[in-house]
């Protein structure tokens, strides 16, 4: 199968801390991959490097065979990698619909126009449709600052979908969501995301979610890949149980 993302020997240090240690992995099209690991294991650093926010010290990153190492988040986004954030990165004083409107108008082939979005039904419709998919149609006209944390996470993910990315990275999509609602939220996310993004990498701490939604699990520990493979295989790995899941499950 063709790799969407191909990463070779990625290294990154912050002073004495090794955040990425010779990371090498391939993600084929259509796979749903979960990244697990304790806080500080290097999951978010990996996401930050792949999206161009951090520059790796050494190593290469390729998207569909194209080297994207050293490109800015903007270029990477244009080339087809989108992400959501652990702390939602939204325009808090704008409404949910306006947030999506910025994303939709910015994703067009033409530069931003001086036309009012109110007069561009295709943009507005797309924004509302995306919110609707996440069950947020009722909240479209509310400013983000009035919305709860869980809702913000969904808006954040909706924004990442606008460009129909080749690869979608979700950084802890269910963090801040109560244990009872986790499955419902994740169901909704996977369902809403599928028309626009087939290849998904998500960072997750809840092992039940991981085993239910991931085709493949990559366990991080101190910047290295501890295990990589089928969920049942990785989650039962001795080292993973010792260093990552703490033997709790």
């Amino acid at each position: 199968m063709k790799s969407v993302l191909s990463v070779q020997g990625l290294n990154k240090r912050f002073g004495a801390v090794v955040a990425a240690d010779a990371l090498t992995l391939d993600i084929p099209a259509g796979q749903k991959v979960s990244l697990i690991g304790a806080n500080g294991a290097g999951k978010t650093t990996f996401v930050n490097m792949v999206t161009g926010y951090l520059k790796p010290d050494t190593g290469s990153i390729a998207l569909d065979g194209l080297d994207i190492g050293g490109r800015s988040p903007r270029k990477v986004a244009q080339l087809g990698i989108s992400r959501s954030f652990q702390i939602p990165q939204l325009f808090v004083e704008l409404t949910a619909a306006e947030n999506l409107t910025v994303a939709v108008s910015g994703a067009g082939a033409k530069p931003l126009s001086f036309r009012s979005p109110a007069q561009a039904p295709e943009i507005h419709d797309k924004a509302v449709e995306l919110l609707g998919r996440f069950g947020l149609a009722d909240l479209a006209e509310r400013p983000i600052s009035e919305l709860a944390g869980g809702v913000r996470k969904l808006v954040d993910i909706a924004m990442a979908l606008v460009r129909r990315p080749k690869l979608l990275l979700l950084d802890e999509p269910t963090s801040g969501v109560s244990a009872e609602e986790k499955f419902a939220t994740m169901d909704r996310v996977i369902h809403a995301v599928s028309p626009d993004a087939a290849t998904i990498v998500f960072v997750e701490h809840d092992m039940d979610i991981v085993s239910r939604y991931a085709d493949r699990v990559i366990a991080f520990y101190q910047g290295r890949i501890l295990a990589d493979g089928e969920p049942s295989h990785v989650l039962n790995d001795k080292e993973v149980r010792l260093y990552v899941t703490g033997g709790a499950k």
Partner: protein
Amino acid sequence: MNFFLTIIVDGLIQASWLFIVALGLTLVFGVLKILNIAHGSLYALGAYVAATAVTMAAARSLPPGVGFVAMLISVALIASAVGLLLERGLLKMFYGRDEVVLLLVTYAVFLVLEDATKLIWGVNPIYATQPYELFGNLEFAGLYYVGYDLVLIPISAAIGFAIWFGLNRTITGKIVLAVIHNEEMSVSMGVRVNRVYAFAFATGALLAAIAGALTAPKISIQPGLSSDVIILSFAIVVIGGLGSVEGAAVGALLVGLARAASVHLMPQAELFVIYLVMAGVLVFRPEGLFKREMARRI
């Protein structure tokens, strides 16, 4: 050879008082995260109070040495009081607002202080020259210098050392440093940030005013002084990195030397040269020479 020596000595003299002003500005920024436009007004306040003190001392026929000491003491007292009043009475009301809003607040304070000094001391230049003769004249490598100018260099170094020592070797200083580096953490450790703010702002005001007092005997004190000084000290702290003590020292040296060099080589380009240095630094180090670039956690 003498020519270069002249530039270096003149540059050091310039740098010495500029450093004291910039130190205050950078300290206030480090702790309160406020770039205080009114800092220049506090400098001017120091100069005006110094002139009044010196003139009063001279009128009582006190020796210039006594006048000099009286000048420093009165400036220190008044500046600390004004600093405390400004921070507790006014700035406090705006904490938590955007950094640009705080910049505007200090701009408003600048405007108010500017006219307040005019109301108190008038618009005509005043002088405080008596202490300038205090240390006589010196011949140095074939050049003549006013002793007072040269004395500024060790005084400035001593003040710089005192601040460094205070920050790094005393408990109070360590608390201040903790607030500079991570305010949230300090609060959770039980640091009373309000007190640190008041203390830091008063110290900043004190430094500005002392620099004003020390330069008062060299200059004519008139409206517009505050504006000139704030423009220079901004350049210094931007070069050095906002909030960095070492940065203020290096920035002051660079600006002092650049200024002295341009005065001797190309007097038309004085201000231009300073901002050229600043622009040059910013192109390569957008956060200034002594500051780590902070990335946002996402």
